[in-house]
């Protein structure tokens, strides 16, 4: 019996498992097949498509609203919206405005819906036990689930960036990008920074996805898991904004999300970036291991 086909605790091994495992030469390919099937299922679910569509609409609305309010080109617009003054001269900044705005709630909720639904949804529909009958093992199934969450978060983040970039280019002039430090870099260099900003946000969403996956293994009610993730995000943001609690700030899950602004400084503030990435990695590791311990040891009856 291979490690891959080892049935998880609590699930009796079906008689076909051994022969099934013997026919599959590469566990990587099997993983890939399962991942592909799961990804297709999640990405093509109408609810999730609608979520991505709504996510795409937000940058458009923000762009049009800011275009109509027409920031004065010579500055002096106050500090209401971050990057607002730069936007009038450069549409690329719509991406940063959109990302920083949607990071407050919209992107986390999109990730929460998919992450909260990942295990709890299957349990709720009563399909989890059939899924466990697939000769994949619970560990691998969980890995596939997490991979799908990360991919979905990546898609959502890149959709925001891409739509905002397109809308920014259509509504505002596009040219060399002025960084937060007042240094101007070429449009190409600015777009490279935008790519890294988007990836950083996607990593942040991946860490949140791990939290969601862990919560999802705790319940059979997907909506409860989704709400719990959203509450965690909002609570973390509220605590982070209280100056008296500044000491715990750096350890909160949402604290480093907006640190993507470090990529827009000259020179890049790598220490803040690395702190953020370290925080995301620790959160992902902790909650993935929690989800694994829970999922592989729980009795699945539904």
């Amino acid at each position, binding site marked *: 019996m291979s490690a891959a086909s*080892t049935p998880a605790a609590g699930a009796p091994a079906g008689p076909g498992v051994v022969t099934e495992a013997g026919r599959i030469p590469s566990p990587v390919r099997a993983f890939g097949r399962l991942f592909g099937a799961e990804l297709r299922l999640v990405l093509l679910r109408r609810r999730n498509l609608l979520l991505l569509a709504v996510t795409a609409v937000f940058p458009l609305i923000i762009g049009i609203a800011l275009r109509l309010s027409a920031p004065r080109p010579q500055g*002096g617009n106050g*500090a209401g919206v971050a990057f607002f003054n730069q936007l009038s001269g450069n549409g690329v900044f719509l991406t*940063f405005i959109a990302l920083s705005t949607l990071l407050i709630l919209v992107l986390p909720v999109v990730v929460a819906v998919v992450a909260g639904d990942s295990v709890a949804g299957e349990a709720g529909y009563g399909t989890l036990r059939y899924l466990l009958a697939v000769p994949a093992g619970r560990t691998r199934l969980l890995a596939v689930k997490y991979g799908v969450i990360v991919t979905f978060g990546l898609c959502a983040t890149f959709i925001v960036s891409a739509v905002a970039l397109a809308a920014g280019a259509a509504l505002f002039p596009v040219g060399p990008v002025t960084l937060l430090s*007042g240094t101007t870099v070429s449009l190409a260099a600015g777009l490279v920074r935008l790519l890294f900003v988007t990836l950083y946000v996607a990593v942040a969403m991946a860490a949140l996805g791990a939290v969601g996956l862990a919560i999802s293994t705790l319940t059979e009610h997907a909506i409860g898991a989704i709400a719990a993730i959203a509450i965690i995000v909002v609570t973390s943001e509220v605590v982070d904004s209280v*100056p008296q609690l500044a000491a715990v700030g750096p350890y909160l899950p949402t604290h480093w999300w907006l640190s993507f602004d470090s990529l827009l400084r000259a020179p890049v503030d790598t220490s803040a970036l690395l702190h953020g990435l370290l925080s995301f990695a620790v959160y992902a590791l902790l909650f993935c291991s929690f989800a694994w*311990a829970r999922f592989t040891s729980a009795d699945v009856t539904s």
Partner: protein
Amino acid sequence: MTQVPRLSRRARWAVPAGALVITGGVIAGSLITVAQAAPGLPPRTAAQLLVDAAQATTPPLTGTVVETASLGLPSLPGTHNPTSVASLITGSHTVRVFYASPEHFRLQVPQQLSETDVIRDGSTGWLWESTRNAVTRFALPPHETHAKERSSQAGVPMTPQQAAQQVLAKAGKTTTVTVASNVSVAGEAAYQLSLTPKDRRSLVGQVTIAIDARNSVPLRVQVFARGASSPAFQVGYTDINFVAPSAWDLRFAPPPGAAVSQASPGGIQGSGKAVQNKAADGATVIGSGWLTVLEMPSSDLTGAALAAGAPGASPDKTGSPVAVNGGAGDTSEVVRALLGSAAPVHGRWGSGRLLRTSLVSVLITDSGKAYIGAVDPTVLYAAAGTAGK
């Protein structure tokens, strides 16, 4: 194919638990090592440290300076705005330093999704505020700092050793200067000079200055209130590398679309010291050393607050070029909040309101005077008594 031993259900929970314990341990460990590291260095006297510090020229460096103040003030409005005065006296500030020479450096004050920069590139100085998309350009006289050094040296033609001895002798009347235990600041081994006021009426318990052992650069200044174990005010490097910043980072050109304004060097000094000058108009200094008390008409405190608090009193265009965005409005709120928390007091000197923090006392008398000092309130009462006669 080998059989992987299956972990028992309970053993599986050891994995997340172990990960949690390791994470907590690493976090706690990093906090403790920061607090306790005391590097071994060859012993030096206070005079030697002063000489080293005076003779050293700051080498090129890049680093991060963090300023933290916890004066024990009541909770203040506007502390969330990192450029506000309120955050200076209650919060924490970060400045990224890129220093090549006195004529070439960049100071970055990063805030969330915005930044304020001060750049000096030869004879040109720049102030960049990303929230306003505004640049202020200063024409600076070259070798300004050198001129200052020369004039100060011309007045006191001595060796640095003699100067150090004289400083120590002069300070010795009011201050105990000792070398405290070595510390590690931003990963650099550093000597620590400790200045302790001899007069117990000073609220300052101790001032420590950490001086880098290799380059004799001051790395950290901490001000402790009397009896406090953690500093009320601290400014120091959290990260420092003695490497020259790249020339590209020290250059600045106003970005296209930014509003550019000019300011003369007199303008900088004027606005830089605006608060000081304003206070100095009607202010007198009472006492000396650690017991210095500043006396001023209390309308300077409250009046400034009211003027600044009036909406549109300092619009961006007419305001002083260095005025930090939003600073004025916050100041008034802060002053009002502070005055609101002052306790009524009276004595032979008269009556008024007293605001006490761990490090500063402020007495506002009903006769319209304000007394400020890092001193025990009795010193303020005495000052008010002598001034009243």
